[in-house]
């Protein structure tokens, strides 16, 4: 049973026939991440500008580090903000370098233990995330991708639909709280 359904009417730059499934609930995202053996969370350079119910996306990333199963990487120069907040358990890699490696089945990951099987993106400018997800959809066959940004990302495997800011914040809060729990 897929944890989502295809909605064709989402407003987005539609790339072609294969489009993201809409995330139906916070629980479904949490379940997918928990099922993954090596999930990776990618926080973009907009993370510090996007507010959540209890801070910003940087705070959300910091919470996720509490679960050792979660690997967190941040792109652009956003790592500086984590360092300012005295957080060390976050990796830094530029988005193009990361996209290039995620499509490589031989990449060892940040810990040298092998490729990631699920990648969750959040905190990006719409078009840039769109493009990198397109690269992964087409050239990282088998890699599962999720977009947690507020706008529909058709190139992801699963994406949030367009929703109000309030709905998005509540959903994100639930997802993070479920993923902080150590399985």
């Amino acid at each position: 049973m897929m944890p989502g359904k295809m909605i064709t009417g989402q407003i987005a730059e539609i790339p072609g026939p294969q489009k993201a499934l809409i995330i139906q609930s916070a629980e479904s995202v949490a379940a997918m991440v928990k099922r993954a053996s090596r999930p990776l969370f990618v926080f973009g350079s907009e993370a510090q500008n996007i507010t959540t119910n209890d801070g910003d996306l940087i705070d959300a990333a910091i919470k996720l580090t509490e679960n050792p199963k979660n690997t967190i990487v941040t792109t652009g120069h956003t790592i500086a903000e984590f360092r300012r907040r005295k957080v060390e358990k976050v990796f830094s890699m530029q988005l193009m370098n990361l996209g290039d490696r995620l499509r490589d089945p031989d990449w060892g990951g940040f810990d040298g233990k092998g490729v990631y099987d699920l990648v969750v993106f959040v905190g990006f400018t719409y078009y840039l995330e769109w493009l990198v997800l397109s690269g992964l959809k087409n050239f990282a066959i088998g890699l599962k991708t999720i977009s947690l940004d507020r706008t529909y990302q058709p190139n992801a495997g699963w994406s949030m639909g367009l929703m109000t800011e309030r709905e998005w914040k509540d959903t994100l809060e639930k997802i993070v709280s479920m993923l902080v729990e150590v399985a």
Partner: protein
Amino acid sequence: MIQPGCEQLPDRDLKLKVDEFSSTIGMFKGLEIDVGRIYSEDWDEAMGPTPWPSVGTLREWDRKLLKRYKPFYMPDCDLCCLCTFGKCDLTGDKRGACGLNMAAQQSRIVLIAAFIGASTHTAHARHMLNHLIEEYGRNTPIEVAVNTGVEAPNIRLVCGIRPKTLKDLKDVLDYVESQIVQLVAAAHTGQEGDNIDFESKAFHAGMLDHVAMEVADISQISALGLPKGEPETSLAEVGYGAIDSSKPVIMCIGHNVLPSIDIIDYLMNNNLFGQVEVGGLCCTAHDMSRYNERAKIVGPISWQLRFIRSGIPDLIVVDEQCIRTDVLQEAKAIGIPVIATSEKSCLGLPDRTSDSPERVIEDLSLGKNDGVLILDPRKVGEVSVKTAMNVWKRRGGKKGFKIKEIEELAGTCRGCGACVQACPNNLPIDVAIKAAREKNYEPLVSLYDLCVGCGRCESACPVDLPIISMITKANEKSTILEKYPIRVGRGAIQDVEIREVGQPIVFGEIPGVIAMVGCANYPAGTGDVAKISEEFLKRRFIVVASGCSAMNIAMTRDEDGLNLYQKYPGNFDAGGLVNVGSCVANSHITGAAIKIANIFAKRPLRGNYEEIADYILNRVGAVGVAWGAMSQKAASIAAGCWRLGIPVVVGPHGAKYRRMLLGRKEKEEDWKVYNARDGKEVYVGPVPEHLFYAAETQEEAVVMISKLAMRPNDTNKGRAVKLTHYIDLHQKYYGSTPDDLHLYVRRLQDIPFTMRDEVVKILQEQNWVEDKIASPDPTLLDRLVRKRE
């Protein structure tokens, strides 16, 4: 020996036609004698292996680069819809009806973008050259820069000729045009099928582009008397405030300066310069100011809509490239006419080239025609000036925005957010409009600098709010006064300057040459290009600028009210800020890199592309930066840099070119070169790490640029200087010391003295071993090995 496949020298020059000829051996009628091309051979440099290279000649060189810098594709569309078999879905591992897969299709699109760009500059160059030959004569000497012998480095390198007069450039363009046709043909259905071969062809388009740009710029420099490489050209003005809007204003938009030259000449010849303002947008403005610094530069391409909407112009003259295709509708909305001047952009207007100027002026002045097409540049001046004066009178000095009050307009907003979705930068337009309802205009004011002026928000708006006009009107009081000094584009880099800086660049003691080029599709406002430039100017890099970037660099002042052109000199030396001019002047930037190899290192130039590119890749720390790259021309300019071994960094919108060329720094096998001293293959570390790279933020870009300036040939001192900047910038923007220093420190002498303890500690943690990274006489070309052990 000339490689097989190179095009032969063009074979026509002297043509003798005799209607009737009588001699002792008889009478001849309609006699034609055609003699092959004659070059005066006083150039003692031997011909290199690849003069007039055809599409496949440099394929092996390209493949060497592409083996190291592998394409990472990010498709903008999963379909191909170029033939009637389609649309074909190429998603993932699918293939289209023709057999093409996604990687090949994406590289095909890259090629298409590159040859569109190259064609555009070539067509520009052809128009320019034909006109100048007609007006000044085919024997007009090519005089590009003072203190300079190598007048045309790209042409010498690629074609193997040394052009002396304008007529020599015709052969060059013949060659470029014939090659572009081959590239266009390769993109047809059922032709090329391999993505790496498509990439090689895109590189070829880029190389041709730099040749064509060189033709365009050196011909206009030579014939029109534009600045000849003098570092301290005069200061012109850029900005709205440069224009005296109380006078008739002619607004020239585009890239081909010929029509604007006629306007300037007409104003000069008729003593009207004080009565009529002539200003330009985009590269035409650069070249107008190079021709006469009294011509004003209004701003970059992104200002088109906002400047027209301001109501300041009384007439718009468009030439070619990057003009808004709805300029006629926009002009009509403020009640002014348009003169189109290029066959490439007729805009549906009636061709009035052959009509008398008086009739055209009357029809435009009275509004009988919304605009006209005038294809002879020498007929544009009189019509433009007189029409602008008449329209100005007709408007009675009533300039300004023709929109309702901002809060009234804002009151009709439905708050749907479609504008934000449509905005390339997702700017919070909805929030600003909402605030404007309450007469709070600050959010609208703050959008002004961030807006790239595309107008997509207006197209998306269900109630047709004129959002660009609202943003501009909210800023009217401040923008109307803004003007900044800009050093007029100087053109080429002098040979004597190359002699001075060649060694410190190649040894790494001048840490790099940063070329700020390209359009104004910035992700976060115009200030970024000035910030990036100053970061490197302060560190004694050489910063070269062109096009819209050169304009936007001028538009940031420090606390003392000075901009970068006022703070940094214009010479090609450490800490110099060199405005070369318009798009076509980009050829001088690659030209400077080529001249370093030729003049400083004495590498033969003539038809010797691979060796020079190999030299630049391994020794010249040049990095191109197109922070707001938008067009296909920007793509082809970048492609010309890639083939020449110059990495290019673009802003995040540059990812829409849908392909990066990325190195993998951790893969040692990718970073081996030959040591020309003994023929051994050695590991030199990942320098330069990438060939084409999109940065997400300006801060990321700065750090990456500093890293990309490293080269295998750096001396210990040079590498230490470059590492100092890389580490310092990384600490400044990432808040930490880089974790990849073990890939760039070859031996202890490479470590910056003041950072020694910290760096040594990091290296020990990474199990760094001294001299694992070699310092050879680096080359990727086996044939350049001098001695084998």
